[in-house]
């Protein structure tokens, strides 16, 4: 039996007395793209942050295994070094930190792809997300960039990092339709190279690039299966469900 790249077992997360994730179990195989689809407040981003190990997202129960090893108590940077990467839904602003510096600390391809220079890799990934490298590399990653620009730079940085498991939190939020198409293509290309991705989204058309889709509702995985089947279920059942307005678990 092939060991999954990521295996989550009965993960629970609480915050301020509210249950955010309720016994979530899911696995992701090597080279697989899985989408977590759900309404706002279902707990999707919290699941990604818990996998990444953010300090405010310590599970109250359950385990996270990565390449067969328990990483539940590992710090963010330790998980990153193991090969987990996160593209944030709303990327932070960094005063005085240049785009090229941000890309440099993200760059993980120098070891695996030494024949291509860092500058060429930056140029390549910025173009792939629809940004002109000459306009952006020497700019600060601060409030002078729009949310959409910072989002595209965050995606370029995450792809440049080339993690074994990429967590993409609402990868289309804040970016234009053309950018969304580019990002979907990048995810597909990324998976073809043997890497895995977990896409967090409330947009079924983004989930279309996934091999499997899990529908998250009120902190629980309601069902999981082949993408087409799950998307049909989501369109017919979930979009009219009254629970989508009551996603908070008490």
């Amino acid at each position, binding site marked *: 039996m092939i060991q999954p790249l990521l295996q989550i077992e009965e993960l629970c997360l609480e915050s301020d007395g509210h249950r955010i994730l309720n016994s979530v179990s899911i696995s992701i195989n090597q080279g697989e793209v899985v989408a977590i689809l759900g309404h706002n407040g279902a707990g999707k981003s919290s699941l990604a942050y818990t996998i*990444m190990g*953010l*300090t*405010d997202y310590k599970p109250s129960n359950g385990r996270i295994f990565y390449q067969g090893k328990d990483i539940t108590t590992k*710090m*963010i*940077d330790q998980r*990153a*070094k193991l090969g987990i*990467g*996160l593209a*944030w839904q709303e*990327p*932070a*602003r*960094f*005063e*005085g*930190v240049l785009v090229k*510096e941000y890309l440099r*600390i*993200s760059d*993980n391809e120098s070891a695996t792809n030494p024949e291509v220079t860092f500058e060429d890799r930056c140029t390549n990934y910025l173009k792939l997300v629809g940004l002109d490298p000459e306009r952006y590399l020497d700019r*600060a990653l601060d409030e002078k960039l729009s949310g959409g620009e910072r989002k595209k730079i965050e995606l370029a*940085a995450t792809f440049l*990092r080339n993690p074994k498991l990429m967590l993409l939190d609402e990868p289309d939020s804040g970016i234009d339709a053309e950018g969304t198409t580019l990002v979907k293509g990048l995810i597909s290309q990324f998976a073809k190279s043997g890497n895995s991705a977990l896409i967090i989204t409330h947009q079924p058309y983004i989930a279309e690039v996934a091999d499997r889709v899990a529908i998250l509702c009120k902190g629980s995985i309601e069902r999981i299966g082949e993408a087409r089947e799950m998307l049909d279920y989501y369109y017919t059942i979930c979009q009219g469900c009254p629970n989508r307005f009551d996603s908070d678990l008490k």
Partner: protein
Amino acid sequence: MKTNQHLLTEAYKKAGGMPEVFSNREMAHLMIHGDEVYSSHLIPGLDLDVQTNGGVVEVYFRMHQGQVFNHPVNICFGIVPEKGKQEIKVDGEIEEDAKLEFLAYCVFPNAIKVEHFMNGRVNIRANSSFHYTEVHYHGDNGGILVKPKVTVSVGENSIYQGNFYLTKGRAGQVDIDYEISTETAGKVDLLAKINASGDDNVRIRESAILKGTNSKGLVRSRIVGRGSSRSEVISEIIALNAGCYGHVDCIETLLEQATAKAIPLVDVQHRLATVTHEAAVGRVNKKQLETIMAKGLSEDEAIEILVGGLLR
């Protein structure tokens, strides 16, 4: 044996200055060690008179009407020995339709018991601009008191931009007091960036008084405190007339046992004026920190990147 002038030039270079500017005949410069003028060069359009009076260096400058320089006037103030006192009095006039930029390096590389006082007054007449950037380097001992007090009058449609950088080495005892007032459609932009460590004590008072209609003020400060350093930043904008707009923006990031106080003072005396303020005092922003750590960097490495950006 190296002369003090040679050592001052080395410290100037270490602080980020480019010594070649002192031999460029197209660029004005002034180099003062203690109360002694080591070197100066003038170019047409700028009057500069330097005199020593009872240990006080008195600098008078006047930028002629309509003059615009392509290069900044390069200035180096400093004291090389471990002990000493430098007291500078500046009186400046920028006439109408002129544009002037000063780039000053204030270097005290070996300071153990050094005092540097600056008392400045600058008058910017209408339709002119004056940019004053001072970059300080106080060495690694923290044995210095730096006390600049500057008042600037910004005329109609004129601009004053003042930058204070002290981002390398120790800060020592720093007490900054700037007060800038603007006439109609005048603009003031103040920025201070200081890295404090050890038992450094930093006090900043920056005040923009927006007197004329439609004048604008921006007062920003970025302080990184380490060790047991202490910083206090008073950022003040007073808007007295219609159409005045001001913004105060203060970030004091604290590491180790450092402490800080930020006091934004917003005084709006006209219903058609607006002043906003924001301040963040305390630890490094968590989201920024976790974003960098999610790239595989340790917490310490991530903090250095964040504070490095803040002080750039």
